[in-house]
């Protein structure tokens, strides 16, 4: 055992700073913001090295990586926004070295912008100095959207328009996912004992539920609940030495389209098309090889679109996996076998719940009597897992395979 030899696996090829550092005011007497420092330094290092900004594949910064990628109009395939204080940038170089050595990226950007003096007193040294609202938020703050459902509803309307789909088509996703929750005693919607809203539901129930943001009714939306979860990842020698069944990380990929949904080019398509393409390629497998799927279902529209992006269904037809029963218990492609964010548990960031259930299914522990009863364990040996973050913004895809495959 021991670390791979990363020595000399990458080099720093340029370094630059923002235009005015120290105690800056711009020509009109305004303070310079943290975002300005970032963008100026990035432009300057691009000019210095001759590396076009459009060729940056990985973005590393202390909390800014999504905002920077969107502002620059790039869609990196490696995002790291580790923020652990003043040493973050040394750590970013370490992480970039590992990503380059692994062959995931060739060119990484590490960026810093901190208006520590101009915006002093706004939180103190080390973490403060962000300065002003992001321009994307500034230009959307006036318009009365509150939380995720108010935004995701726009994506569903656009899907209706482009593909002729309806509220009813997406309602099947809620119904089938609730059926899975009936096989998971830990699901919030397992039964009436757990919640007055628990137990099986029908398409009509979904359509008749109160409207949150048309066309999303309550049952098109995920839960808000508590959750904690953890997984351990280890090298094969360790995995073989343990008493648990290993589940192999056969493929992995990540991408982002935007941070603010204002910047989403096609409201019916997410970056999961790219993150899954990377993951499938690494795995040497394709969507046709996937025997089950764990798909982020913050809303029915999220699950429907993502199934399309993962190549599990043709464009515009993601919902048919649920409507035609393929995703249901006993179907040919079980999806969200824990009961999903819609009916099992959704704490706000649901990606861990996806991982835990994918591990249980592929390690053959999905029917332990506590987290699953008879009928929940599938025979799948492959599983595509996709998390979606932000507002249909960032995506991470894993292709996991069982040890008995």
């Amino acid at each position: 055992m021991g670390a791979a030899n990363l020595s000399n696996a990458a080099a720093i090829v340029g370094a630059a700073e923002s235009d005015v550092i120290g105690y800056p005011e711009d020509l009109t007497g305004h303070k310079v913001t943290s975002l300005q420092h970032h963008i100026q330094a990035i432009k300057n290092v691009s000019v210095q090295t001759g590396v076009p900004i459009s060729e940056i594949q990985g973005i590393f910064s202390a909390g800014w990586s999504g905002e920077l990628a969107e502002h620059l109009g790039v869609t990196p395939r490696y995002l790291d926004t580790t923020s652990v204080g003043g040493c973050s940038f040394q750590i970013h170089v370490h992480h970039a070295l590992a990503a380059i050595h692994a062959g995931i990226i060739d060119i990484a950007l590490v960026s810093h912008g901190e208006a520590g003096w101009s915006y002093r007193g706004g939180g103190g040294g080390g973490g403060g100095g962000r300065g002003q609202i992001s321009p994307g938020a500034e230009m959307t703050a006036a318009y009365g959207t509150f939380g995720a459902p108010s935004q995701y509803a726009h994506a569903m309307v656009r899907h209706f328009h482009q593909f002729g789909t309806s509220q009813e088509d997406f309602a099947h996703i809620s119904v089938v996912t609730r059926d899975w929750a009936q096989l998971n005693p830990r699901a919030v919607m397992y039964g009436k004992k757990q919640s007055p809203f628990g137990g099986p539901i029908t398409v009509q129930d979904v359509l008749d539920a109160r409207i949150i943001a048309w066309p999303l009714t309550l049952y098109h939306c995920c839960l808000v609940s508590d959750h904690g979860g953890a997984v351990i990842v280890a090298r094969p020698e360790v995995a073989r030495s343990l008493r648990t069944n290993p589940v192999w990380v056969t493929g992995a990929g990540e991408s982002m389209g935007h941070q603010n949904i204002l910047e989403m080019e096609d409201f019916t398509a997410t970056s999961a098309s790219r993150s899954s393409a990377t993951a499938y390629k690494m795995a040497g497998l394709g969507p046709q090889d996937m025997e089950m799927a764990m798909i982020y279902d913050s809303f029915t529209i999220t699950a429907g679109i993502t199934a399309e992006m993962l190549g599990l269904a043709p464009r515009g037809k993601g919902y048919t996996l649920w409507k035609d029963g393929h995703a249901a218990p006993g179907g040919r492609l079980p999806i969200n076998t824990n009961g999903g964010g819609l009916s099992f548990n959704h704490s706000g960031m649901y990606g861990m719940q996806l991982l835990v259930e994918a591990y249980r299914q592929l390690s053959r522990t999905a029917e332990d009597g506590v987290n699953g009863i008879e009928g929940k364990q599938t025979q799948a040996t492959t599983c595509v897992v996709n998390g979606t973050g932000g507002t249909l913004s960032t995506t991470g895809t894993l292709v996991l395979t069982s040890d008995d495959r």
Partner: protein
Amino acid sequence: MAYTKPIPPQGQHTKPFWEGAKAGKLMLPRCRDCNRVHWYPRLICPFCHSTNLEWIEASGKGRLHTFAVQHRAFGGWAEEVPYVTAYIDLDEGDRMMTVLRGVDPTKPEEIKIGARVEVEFEQANDDTSIPFWRVVEQAGE
């Protein structure tokens, strides 16, 4: 009547937009090198990465890209539910968010993607006028 809904804090490089709005003009950033308009306002062109940017007065016309009807809201907006939020494809290019006027929020099936829209401004306070968009013509069948 006092404006009770959120008023965005104004940034620095976005000042020409807010100055224009006060005068009833829709100002958009454009790149002098690649000539493309972008929205929201950047410090660098998101298409060609030039920093040679300018502000132009836009036509104030566009088309409805997509929408939603908000039934749950907070603060000043809570008094207006249901209302229609929308994304507008600007005639000059790129996309802007808004609350849509000139439509019936209780009949969402009658709101047409592609409908022609025009901008109008509402004064929120002495420093801020906020652009809203109104449907002026339904999309051609």
